[in-house]
């Protein structure tokens, strides 16, 4: 049980950067950014490849830079070239498959054997043996959350938030939406790639298919977190994504351990949960409408 808790916390923190990225793109900017799956693998590929050649820390930074580039490409399609935003993400995502293979040296799976990772570096520095992974994962995620939260309070951050909130108003306030969307998507994908980078080094491998469905899982974490913590301020959002991610990993671990549903079905369950959660306002309206109709019929029928 202790082992499950620790693993769930570790994975929860590592993967929390994905819902954090989605918080920025989906909640703040109001753009469904489907670059996420590819950007996650891109981060893992870059970081594992760099760690393999002996630069684990640089690998994390390079992964973020690569993710930002991917975000920029998606932003370019939708802001300058008129590609619908969802399609722009899918196109970049498809292209990234090749880029990711390239980053891993044209193999579909890259592994680290004896090479140092950021985690082994920390362990070798003498930080408590069993806790170093959790400490580093939590440290990176909380740091990024704090930075993002602070950033969203700056003038540029406010401009990005306004872009998602009321685009008419943004144009009338001397803000260039092309610029704010680009910056927002760059940061979001840098965070996603960082998540991939950390996970890649923790698992000592990068797989070309590791990102499949990560955007839906990220949304699930975001929704779970917002259900528990609530919505509102940016700080609350940051707490929500971390809590949501950890809770999701706990559910995952429990399913894995107790086998209440076959683990292979978890993606289907996740997809259903996300679809239902996003559909909830519409479903509520429909139910309310049916109740009204029923009430009206009973009244009129007698």
């Amino acid at each position, binding site marked *: 049980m202790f082992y499950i808790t620790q693993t769930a916390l570790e994975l929860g923190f590592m993967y929390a950067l994905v819902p954090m990225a989605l918080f920025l793109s989906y909640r703040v900017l109001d753009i469904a950014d489907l670059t996420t799956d590819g950007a996650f693998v891109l981060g893992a590929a870059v970081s594992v490849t760099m760690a393999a050649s002996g630069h684990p820390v640089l690998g994390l930074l390079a992964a973020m830079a690569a993710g930002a580039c991917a975000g920029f490409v998606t932003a370019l399609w939708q802001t300058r070239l008129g590609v619908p935003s969802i399609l722009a993400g899918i196109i970049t995502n498809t292209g990234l498959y090749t880029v990711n293979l390239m980053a891993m040296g044209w193999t579909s799976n890259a592994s680290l054997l004896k090479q140092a990772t950021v985690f082994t570096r920390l362990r070798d520095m003498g930080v408590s043996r069993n806790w170093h992974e959790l400490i580093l994962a939590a440290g990176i995620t909380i740091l990024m959350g704090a930075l993002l939260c602070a950033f969203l*309070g700056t*003038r540029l951050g406010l401009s990005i938030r306004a872009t998602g909130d009321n685009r008419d108003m943004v144009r009338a*306030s*001397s*803000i260039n939406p092309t610029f704010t969307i680009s910056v927002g998507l760059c940061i979001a994908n840098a965070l996603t790639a960082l998540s991939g980078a950390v996970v890649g080094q923790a698992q000592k491998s990068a797989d070309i298919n590791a990102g499949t469905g990560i955007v839906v899982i990220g949304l699930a974490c975001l929704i779970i977190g917002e259900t528990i913590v609530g919505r509102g301020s940016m700080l609350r959002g940051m707490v929500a994504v971390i809590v949501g991610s950890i809770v999701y990993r706990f559910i995952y671990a429990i399913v894995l351990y107790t086998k209440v549903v076959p683990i292979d079905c978890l993606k289907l369950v996740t997809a259903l949960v996300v679809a239902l959660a996003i559909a909830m306002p519409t479903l509520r309206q429909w139910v309310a409408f049916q109740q009204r109709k029923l009430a009206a019929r009973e009244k009129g029928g007698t």
Partner: protein
Amino acid sequence: MLELRNISKTFNPGTVNEKKAIAGISLHLEKGDFVTIVGSNGAGKSTLFNAVAGSFYVDEGTILLAGEDITFQPEHRRSRVIGRLFQDPMRGTAPHMTIEENLALAYLRTAKNQHAFFSRTTRAEKQFFRDQLALLGMGLEDRLRQPVGLLSGGQRQALTLLMATMVPPKLLLLDEHTAALDPATAEKVLSLTRSIVSQHHITTMMVTHNMQNALDLGNRTLMMDDGSIVLDIRGAERQGLTVSDLLERFRSGAGKALDNDRILLS
């Protein structure tokens, strides 16, 4: 201040829906002019504003603002010096952001904030926002940290007016900005408009369908029809003009009666 030289705009050219929305308008506004604009349905009033604000680029002609050619300047660049209010109070503010954050965005127009991406709103600025809000007389100065979505339409429109004029723009475009408000609130927003505009001597264009307002406010009245300015009244001839005079003048200028189903004659 503002000079339009023979600007035109045609929508959907070459199709059955082709519509010449602006047909060669030329106009010169002096600094401090407050122009009211009335006209029939589809006369091109809002299109004229969109052209000046840069929502689209004109097909022909030149637009100069304070001597600078802005014909091909994108909308977000123009909005540094052009303030704008729409009829819909929801369009001018970001509902999920606080009053303070909205004001901070409007304050981006100031030169020193233009490129200070990572700076935050200072205490002095917050105090300035509070003082400015107090001038609206709506008690908003005590609600700085509340999301704008909680405000009423009138409060939001007053806030938008403040946001558009806090850094005095070179040109203020008011597109029926009180039309969606109840009469009392509309009157309040209108009197705020009057005092802010006169205090900063802001060059202003205001579309209205309230004929009395068109004559009461400002120093010049334009009447538009079918993409053109058919009547331009100012100075002595505007003094003592009544609504029925105005309608009569329109009839003789446009060759037909004013046809606007939303017009308010009183």
